[in-house]
């Protein structure tokens, strides 16, 4: 059922990369992205990084309660946003994917509003920071329980197959997620059904403090695809071009009915697990420094510079522009004002049942007093 893909082989010994550490193209085929496309990838990675920083600042300044940094994950995340058909394909993201969603087209306003739980949050302030979602863009609202979105993703993909819509369902998650029973259940069902699902693990080698070796006995995560009869691509997720081309190929082979696939994108998170974490307890500084040398933005900047597509002026302009956009979005998000108390009783059901009606009344009494 699974056809061989054009350019890339699953189960390689080393992660697939197309740009080396010096920013040089090492692909065996010709790059076919135009200058604009190439620069947009860069722009979106920078925007993701800047958004990340803003979100951390909001937490540090006490305006939000929590932050989860994604710096180091941008290569694969931005590649996904650029290889799906926006607003047509479905995404099942996880909590570290705000940069991906921004690049996909989710307004920064909505992401900030979700973070601050203001009225501009399409989800009405119901969840913690880092749990965005967008119906308009078919981006399934993030849920906290790790891997719990995998069976729903399988279901959406099976639905797309049944209805023959031509959509592909792309699901992202961390290395830790692959240990959960739900992960197995969902991936297995999608594979048994040959559904158009692409599973992407953003492997940053840690589930909070637990390193890969304690998570699994397998040599890498791509190889887990064999258990489901799917191809498993081992990818340098900090190489945005490798991520772009691999995702493009994998998504399109899945779209034409070749069945699901697994992509292991090797990344690293530079920061702690979250604003509540202290990563010094479990990983050496040198390790962090080592991986920062492979930074997706810096590597790609060298690549662009080598083609005269980047200079300091453009960088400054870019940062200025994105910074302004983000600042405006944040302002708007804050201006919307906090979510009203009684919103907590809506959306439990399509229409409130009598317990919600009674309890809302009780709270209104209490607040009135």
């Amino acid at each position: 059922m699974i056809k061989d893909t054009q350019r890339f082989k699953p189960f390689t010994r080393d992660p697939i990369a197309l740009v080396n550490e010096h920013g040089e193209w090492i692909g065996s085929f010709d790059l076919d992205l135009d200058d604009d496309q190439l620069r947009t990838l860069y722009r979106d990675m920078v925007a993701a990084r800047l958004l990340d920083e803003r979100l951390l600042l909001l937490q540090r300044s006490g305006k939000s309660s929590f932050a989860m940094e994604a710096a180091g994950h941008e290569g694969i995340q931005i590649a996904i946003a650029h290889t799906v058909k926006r607003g047509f394909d479905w995404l099942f993201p996880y909590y570290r994917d705000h940069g991906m969603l921004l690049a996909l087209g989710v307004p920064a306003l909505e992401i900030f509003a979700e973070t601050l739980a203001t009225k501009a949050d399409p989800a009405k302030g119901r969840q913690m920071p880092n749990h965005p979602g967008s119906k308009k863009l078919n981006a399934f609202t993030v849920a906290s329980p790790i891997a719990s979105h995998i069976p729903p993703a399988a279901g959406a993909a099976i639905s797309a197959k049944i209805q023959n819509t031509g959509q592909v369902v792309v699901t992202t998650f961390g290395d830790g997620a692959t240990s959960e029973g739900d992960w197995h259940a969902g991936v297995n069902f999608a594979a048994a059904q040959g559904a158009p699902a692409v599973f992407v693990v953003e492997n940053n080698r840690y589930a909070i403090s637990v390193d890969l070796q304690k998570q699994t006995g397998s040599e890498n995560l791509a190889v887990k695809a064999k258990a489901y009869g799917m191809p498993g691509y081992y990818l340098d997720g900090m190489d945005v071009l490798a991520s772009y081309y691999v995702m493009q190929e994998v998504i399109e082979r899945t779209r034409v009915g070749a069945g699901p696939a697994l992509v292991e994108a090797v990344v690293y998170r530079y920061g702690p697990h979250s604003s509540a974490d202290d990563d010094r307890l479990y990983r050496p500084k040198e390790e962090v420094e080592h991986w920062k040398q492979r930074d997706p933005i810096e590597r790609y900047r060298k690549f662009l510079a080598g083609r005269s597509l980047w200079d300091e002026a453009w960088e400054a302009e870019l940062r200025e522009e994105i910074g302004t956009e983000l600042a405006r979005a944040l302002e708007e998000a804050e201006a919307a004002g906090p979510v009203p108390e009684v919103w907590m009783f809506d959306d439990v059901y399509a229409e409130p049942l009598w317990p919600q009606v009674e309890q809302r009344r009780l709270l209104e009494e209490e607040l009135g007093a």
Partner: protein
Amino acid sequence: MATMTLVQAIARTLDEEMARDDAVVVLGEDVGKRGGVFLATEGLQQKYGPDRVIDTPLSEAAIIGAAVGMAAHGLRPVAEIQFADYVFPGFDQLVSQAAKLRYRSGAQFTAPMVVRMPSGGGVKGGHHHSQSPEAHFVHTAGLKVVVVSTPYDAKGLLKTAIRDDDPVVFMEPKRLYRAVKEEVPDEDYTIPLGQAAVRREGDDLTLIYYGTVAPEVLQAADELEKVGIRPHVLDLRSLMPWDKEAVLEAVSRTGRVMIVADAPRHASFASEVAATIAEEVLDQLEAPPVRVTGFDTPYPYAQDKLYMPTVTRILNATKKVLDY
């Protein structure tokens, strides 16, 4: 108008709903070729094909979770869990995904789906083919919960559940699947959630029940009538929402009340009803609200018929309530 069993009513209703709406799909273990281990989906795959009647891998998390994704994506899935006891491997999908999707997304995404499951004991199933886990569902905001006990209700309530925009857990007492036949109209009809059925009218005592214990409760009611006691008997049918109005009205009128159910007693749905009665109509009570329930043990095999409320146990309790 045809005469049919409860399980036949389920199969018939699924067929009607699949014919009515292409978005309705059925998924679960053995629901396709086999027609379900209880034959509740008999003939559906032959009629609607393997894309709409899906034999799934043996994974309740996959079944419930995939139903969530299908529902969010536009289908109206009806998932079958082979026995209610086996909902637990899929429990996280039910409580963390299905129940909370509308809420957490601010109604951007919803999960209009039904999770059907044969429940209850009395079939020599031991502790993993006999449980009635409704308390877990009722305690989980975001889920609606139905427990049927007659073929007629099964049709009307299953239609309502399938057309409902929220996830509905639909429990079918397996010992009643073939226990009685009843006339079920051919026409399309629905029964709203949250409406109790009055099974007997009376003023001496209110008997509240649902599901598996129906035969025992009705037999006990008959015995009582023989000795001149007229119980008001309510089959709740829907536990979330449940018909508080009908319950409080009846209790206020009769002053005496018993709640009968087969699930274990502690933190059960029966406890909820008793607590609500005590909280809202204390002054109308002439005797304590009594719960006759399953025991706080796993469901035993050898004592299959004694675990759930027997007619004797119900009548013993009635005596206490009436003599109070």
